């Protein structure tokens, strides 16, 4: 008994417990649902067979089914646009703001604090705020545009099929900018001032210093922000729920929302699982890129 207590307090016992806790957590909450999801994507699953494991395997039928649906291609393109535009704009605006806040001016930290507002608010609340801004009939944005004379009639941001997806993208960009800004600020602050001065003495203009010093020295942070931004954007669900519900007629639908609709609104659970499996594969790829970029950071 004493010996056991000793290995627990001094020896490998305690370490083992810690490792087992972490491992157990991963198995129960990550690995199990993941594997369960993958298995379901090869099975015929409906409401009645949901509780039992004993379901007929249907091979790749679910995959053929879902990818053959007419709306699949539209939704795929929407997802690509949603992720691509969101990440690119978040990165550009976040980087711009991070550089702006590197400057020394009065009220700097106060103003920077304001920009973090979007970060601390739950996405559903943000969605509610934006649905109020973007509302067609008495929305704030329409009112502003009309009174400034920039448009002559109301734009139905959330119900116009040409607009709905971009409305969600705008809200999502707003939501992601603070995260980008903070991570990139940390990176910028880590570049010593004297390196810029050396480059200035060596004859580099402001633009040349940005491209030859700032950008290459920010490679690790940029890689991290792009891959994390992609992952977060692929997880963005609340904004769709709050703003458009994927509509009108899938005009603003994306894979993550569609997968949920298929599984939990139409109860085509096998088909819904297929989408999540495909997204998981993509996210693993992005995560691999992220891990590589942070590893490069340790070497540097």
């Amino acid at each position, binding site marked *: 008994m004493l010996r056991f207590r000793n290995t627990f307090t001094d020896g490998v016992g305690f370490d083992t417990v810690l490792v087992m806790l972490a491992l157990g957590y991963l198995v129960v909450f990550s690995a199990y649902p993941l594997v369960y999801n993958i298995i379901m994507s090869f099975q015929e699953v409906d409401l009645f067979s949901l509780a039992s494991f004993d379901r007929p395997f249907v091979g790749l039928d679910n995959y053929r089914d879902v990818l053959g649906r007419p709306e699949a291609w539209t939704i795929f393109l929407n997802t690509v646009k949603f992720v691509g535009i969101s990440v690119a704009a978040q990165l550009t605006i976040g980087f711009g703001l991070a550089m702006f806040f590197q400057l020394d001016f009065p009220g700097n930290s106060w103003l920077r604090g304001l920009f973090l507002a979007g970060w601390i608010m739950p996405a559903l609340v943000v969605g509610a705020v934006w649905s109020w801004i973007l509302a067609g009939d008495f929305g704030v944005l329409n009112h502003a545009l009309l009174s400034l004379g920039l448009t002559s009639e109301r734009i139905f941001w959330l119900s116009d099929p040409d607009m709905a997806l971009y409305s969600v993208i705008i809200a999502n960009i707003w939501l992601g900018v603070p995260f980008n800004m903070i991570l990139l600020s940390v990176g910028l602050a880590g570049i010593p001032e004297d390196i810029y001065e050396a480059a*200035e*003495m060596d004859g580099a203009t402001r633009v040349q210093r940005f491209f030859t010093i700032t950008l290459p020295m920010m490679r690790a942070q940029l890689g991290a922000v792009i891959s994390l931004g992609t992952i977060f954007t692929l997880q963005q669900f609340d904004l769709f729920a709050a703003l458009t519900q994927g509509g009108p007629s899938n005009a603003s639908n994306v894979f993550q929302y569609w997968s949920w609709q298929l599984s939990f609104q139409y109860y085509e659970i096998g088909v819904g699982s297929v989408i999540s499996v495909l997204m998981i594969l993509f996210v693993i790829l992005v995560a691999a890129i992220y891990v590589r970029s942070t590893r490069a950071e340790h070497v540097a």
Partner: protein
Amino acid sequence: MTRQIELSNVQKYYGAYHALRSISLDIDEGEFVALVGPSGCGKSTLLRTIAGLEGISSGDLHIAGERVNDRAPRERDLAMVFQSYALYPHMTVRRNLTYSLRLQRRSRAEQAKAVEEIARITGLEGLLDRYPRELSGGQRQRVAMGRAIIREPKAFLFDEPLSNLDAALRVHMRSEVRQLHNRLGATSVYVTHDQIEAMTMADKVVVMRTGVIEQVGAPLDLYDRPANRFVAGFIGSPAMNFVPGIVQDGGTVALDLPGRPVLRFNGHRPAGEPVTVGLRPEHLELGDGPLTLPVGFVERTGSTSYVLTATDPELMISTPARFPDGRAEVTLSIDPANVHLFSDDTGAALLH
């Protein structure tokens, strides 16, 4: 000789803090000028002002005859070696060296030739494909030097480039930097807080204190004829002894030491004037003389003995002789030419 860098009446304020006060200084082409002074006296500020990294509040700065007050650093054609080296961490040694050439869009062949020559001069052959993090302190220092000389600028600016090296390497690099300067026929402005570095390397030493230039001159001029008490105490190691005294008739001064010893000096001062007498430790000679003082403490390094007297103020004597143990008193003489007098009010030198 032509003037390469000319500062006239330069003032620099950081907010309300007056960092450079009426700095006027001429630096000739090919000259090696050291800016020396205690930490915080404004040496780096002056250097960065010349570089253009700091603006000046008023006054004029000319480089090679042109007024450059409003020119950006890159338009001044000067190279700087930083104390921290400031190497580009994401570039290999080769790319660090060629950075300025690449900005000028020089041809690859030209770059390769320049790198080869610089590597030979600075001893960086074989290290060209390493990153700065893979180099020792001394090697990084060489890269910083190489990056400066590859451009063949109008002048080199050094901000304490050797202070991060260990003592032995520092002494070695001292002569290397100076030889490099001679070989390139360059104009160099070298900031250091170490007066030995300034004395051994420079053609001309500029001694600064709290934003003011105290004296400009050749190293041995500063040593032999310091303009004031501050320069006298700053130049020379160990530092000059200062003793209060009163001028007597016939070119002598009575020291405020036990027995009120009287020393002769060269020159004329009115009798009765209260002064500060400056005596360098190495000028006080053991043997017959007017000073007989109690011994307090003796240090020996083998080549030199340092004797501290048990007086107030205490005197330091440095002598190549082996000072014997157990001596209670020391008798000293000094050549009248080596006695310095400073005004009690202004600190100005009174004899030259």
